[in-house]
């Protein structure tokens, strides 16, 4: 400790100051300890373990004992036949999800705000949050039931209308509509919360003044509501762009069938299939893919955050 840097102001060494601080704050560290231990063991240990992406992992040799193979598995992944398809599937699923899913909560919030009847408004607000609390498994189960080719209500309607029954869950073309449609059904209502909060914080005098000037409800939406919503909407949009290559693995896994692989084959699910579900799991290969993805997503988020900070002075950190 004797060669620690001397800091000017108090004259003590870094070590002594740390000791003093610890004596003063040790109770805070005790309170934090369980949470910190969790992050170290379940988040930082795996980050250390990610080096198996560069090794030929054999359980018998452990993480550091397995042979170093460098970029072998990364090359294998990028030269594999399905690599391009998986990137495209992942990206497009998120992109379409954003295009169709993003505007709906804003629309719902604006129109909910215009409802006159208090109790009806309260009921509507409560109701649109409900699907958020349904589990992914049940959501997928509902899709399997309602869109079943033989007993599903949708196909009964189609055939009753003279159409031909569609095997939705086996058709690659129907994977994205089902995935995104159910996503909107489940979360569009919940995602209005932030916008509703913004709208309720608008000064009521603005509306009163507008009414006196003869503004219709439509005018008020265009000239009061929308300008107030734009900053937060832009922020949400930018933040959402940060997850364009992320995978909603648990949901995609449930909706993936042998028939719709051409569209449902996304990166997160592939990592699970290769690294966990396969009878002969390829740990190193799957880790390499996972690492690639995490690095790419990390870079995207940092970029998006930098852009957001410059444009709207709003950033995550």
């Amino acid at each position, binding site marked *: 400790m004797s060669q620690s840097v001397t800091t000017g102001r108090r004259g003590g060494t870094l070590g002594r100051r740390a000791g003093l*601080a610890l004596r*003063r*704050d040790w109770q*805070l*560290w005790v*309170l*934090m300890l*369980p949470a*910190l231990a*969790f*992050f170290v*063991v*379940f*988040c930082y240990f*795996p*980050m*250390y373990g990610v080096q198996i992406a560069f090794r030929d*992992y054999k359980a018998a040799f452990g*993480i550091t004992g397995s042979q170093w193979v460098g970029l072998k598995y990364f090359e294998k992944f990028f030269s594999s036949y399905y690599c391009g398809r998986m990137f495209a599937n992942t990206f497009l699923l998120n992109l379409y999800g954003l295009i169709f899913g993003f505007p709906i909560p804003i629309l*719902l919030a604006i*129109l909910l705000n*215009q*409802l*006159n009847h208090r109790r*009806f408004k309260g009921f509507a607000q*409560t*109701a649109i949050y*409900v*699907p958020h*609390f*349904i*589990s*992914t*498994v*049940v959501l*997928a*189960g*509902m899709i*399997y039931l*309602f869109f079943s080719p033989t*007993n*599903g209500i949708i196909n*009964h309607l189609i055939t009753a209308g003279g159409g031909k029954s569609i095997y939705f869950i086996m058709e690659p073309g129907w994977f994205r509509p089902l995935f995104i449609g159910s996503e909107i*059904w489940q979360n569009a*209502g919940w995602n209005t*919360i*932030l916008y509703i*909060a913004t709208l309720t914080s608008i000064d009521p005098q603005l509306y009163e003044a507008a*009414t006196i000037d*003869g503004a219709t*409800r439509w005018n008020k939406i265009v000239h009061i509501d929308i300008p107030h919503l734009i900053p937060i909407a832009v922020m949400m949009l930018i933040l959402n762009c940060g997850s364009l290559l992320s995978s909603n*693995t*648990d949901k995609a896994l449930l909706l993936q*069938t042998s028939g719709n692989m051409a569209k449902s084959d996304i990166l997160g699910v592939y990592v699970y299939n290769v690294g*966990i579900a396969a009878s002969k799991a390829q*740990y190193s290969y799957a*880790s390499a893919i*996972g690492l690639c*993805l995490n690095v790419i997503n*990390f870079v995207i988020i940092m970029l998006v955050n930098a852009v957001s900070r410059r444009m709207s002075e709003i950033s995550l950190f």
Partner: protein
Amino acid sequence: MSVAVKKRTRIRETRKDRVFNALNLIFWLAVLFIVLYPLWLILIASVSDPDAVLQAKVLLWPVDFSLMGYEAVFQYQELWGSYLNSIFYTVVGSALSVVVSLAAAYALSRRFAGKKLVNLAITFTMFFSGGLIPIFLNVRDLGLYNTRTIMILMNLVSVWNLMVARTYIQTSIPNELYEAAVMDGADHFTYFFRCVLPLSGTIVAVLSVYYGVARWNDYFTGLVMLRDRKLYPLQLVLREILTALTSTGSSDTFFAAYADNLGGLQEALRKAEVAKYCCIVVSTVPAVLLYVFMQKYFVKGVMIGSLKG
């Protein structure tokens, strides 16, 4: 008198506005139909006759009311075993999550040396992780694979919930209280247990419902971390019942296994379809009820979180 005055001073809505209101009402009726009809359909199908359900005759009201599906579900012991497992994982896990998060949130709301570093280390885990396989191997190396412990410890602390709790403590408990407590000789432990906890009813409720719903609805942790069917949470068993395709699917075989109790194989298969609806009902009711009773806390959680994201 005052009512009359009020009425007179209020500006009457123009015709354009009345048209707008009518259209808006129609829009909301449509939205509510889209949101609620699928849920209603599941509820009525679960108490209808299997044949009527299979022929999609159940549209607005239960047809040939019967509790056959529920009888079949009650026979299915594995489902109830997993139900108990899920209750255990949810109650014990969420309680632990709340305690650990709240203690850490309090610490992070105070000033201490090294706070920046701790904040950075925690936030970093939100944006970068080792990935599924290293997490899995880590759990296996720790000897926690296929144990109840891992179902409790996995996802113990969510960074988001931690930040929500910290923001709550920072904004709703005045710093003067801390100063007064310190004057009276309180240390951090005393202040946390005697002052912060009693004032944290709201945030405890918010965290409980957030952690609780997330744990109740999670199937992926069990899928990756468990091998032994006796340890399966409800959602994992549901997955096999609900998302197996009928031709090859296991759901029919599940119920076929109970054929003796259900009045023969044919009858078991007939009931299997309705039983799926019943499974959805019995598994979803706890989470939705929790939401309905704790509504204000859910919304509050989002609000606190958005204060300082």
